[in-house]
């Protein structure tokens, strides 16, 4: 499972989340993964059988480990037996801007560390300063780093623009928040802040966001209901009420699916 920590090291600062699920007991997982292997990714123990059946064909046996890569729209884009970076290398490269790709001048160590932590705006500001240095090698590496930061920002902005174009406001809000934080000081962060204000000022977007927030609460209720038929019936009615209240939103479509599923 060290692969999962490595994936987090490499892609976590640029937005990848890693979630592991297991049937194992919490005490075993705490001892092996959390304490011995120092896992830093989210681990869910005592996986619910319903969860497993959603991922495995009926009446078939499935071997562990197995993993799925999911994109920003919530769609599966890759899966396989290994959980190593090799399996998803191509897909991850498609999603995340490649790493710096070369060693940098030692004077840029702090800037590099900022970049790798996902503080791209800070790395960019340091690179801009260092680019004026009379040391030609340092200036060249600073230029390279600045270009990488700007390419990264452009990539992140394109992802947010795609979500805005499809009116996927919940995803768009997460991305513009991330842009504002990670690219602080850069033009991309200003753009993100402006887009956030636009989303907040748009009644349709606000309605969609509110609908998704309410939907997530109902989904939580459904999970807590377990097998309680009364509670599940109340949840079904709540989904139906959301469909009516927020008709025309993406959340209402999802609520409808859940109410009949």
């Amino acid at each position, binding site marked *: *499972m060290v692969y*999962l920590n490595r994936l987090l090291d490499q*892609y976590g600062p640029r*937005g*990848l*989340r*890693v*979630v*592991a*699920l*297991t*049937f194992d007991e*919490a005490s075993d*997982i705490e001892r*092996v993964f959390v304490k011995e292997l120092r*896992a830093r*990714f*989210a*681990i*869910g*123990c*005592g*996986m*619910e059988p319903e*969860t497993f059946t*959603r*991922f*495995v*064909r009926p009446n*078939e*046996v*499935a*071997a*562990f*480990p*197995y*993993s*799925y*890569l*999911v994109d*920003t*729209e*919530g*769609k*599966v*884009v890759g*899966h396989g037996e290994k*959980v190593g970076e090799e399996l998803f290398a191509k897909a*991850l490269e498609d*999603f*995340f801007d490649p790493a710096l790709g070369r060693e940098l001048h030692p004077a840029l160590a702090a800037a590099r560390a900022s970049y790798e932590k996902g503080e791209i705006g800070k790395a960019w500001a340091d690179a801009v300063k260092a680019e004026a240095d009379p040391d030609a090698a340092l200036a060249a590496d600073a230029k390279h780093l600045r270009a990488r930061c700007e390419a990264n920002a452009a990539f992140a902005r394109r992802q947010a623009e795609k*979500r805005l174009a499809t009116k*996927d406001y*919940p*995803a*768009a809000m*997460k*991305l513009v928040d991330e842009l504002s934080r990670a690219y602080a000081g850069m033009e991309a962060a200003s753009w993100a802040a402006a887009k956030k204000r636009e989303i907040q000022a748009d009644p349709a977007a606000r309605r969609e966001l509110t609908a998704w927030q309410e939907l*997530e609460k109902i*989904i939580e209720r459904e999970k807590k209901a377990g097998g309680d038929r009364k509670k599940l019936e109340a949840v079904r009615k709540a989904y139906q009420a959301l469909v009516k209240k927020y008709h025309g939103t993406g959340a209402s479509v999802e609520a409808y699916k859940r109410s009949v599923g």
Partner: protein
Amino acid sequence: MVRTVVAALLAAATAHAAGWQELDGAPCPEFAAGRWFNADTPPTAAALRGRVFLLAFICDT
């Protein structure tokens, strides 16, 4: 004989892998667990919308 055993083992391994749904292009099904480590709130497919994430099914053996 050895080849037969190896072939049988490979077939069994393939059958196990084949048990997982392919799901390419499909929405990631929702998931839940009893207890979470390294998570402030239980992650869900819905809450992770807008993020790229890797969902790994693991065991401690």
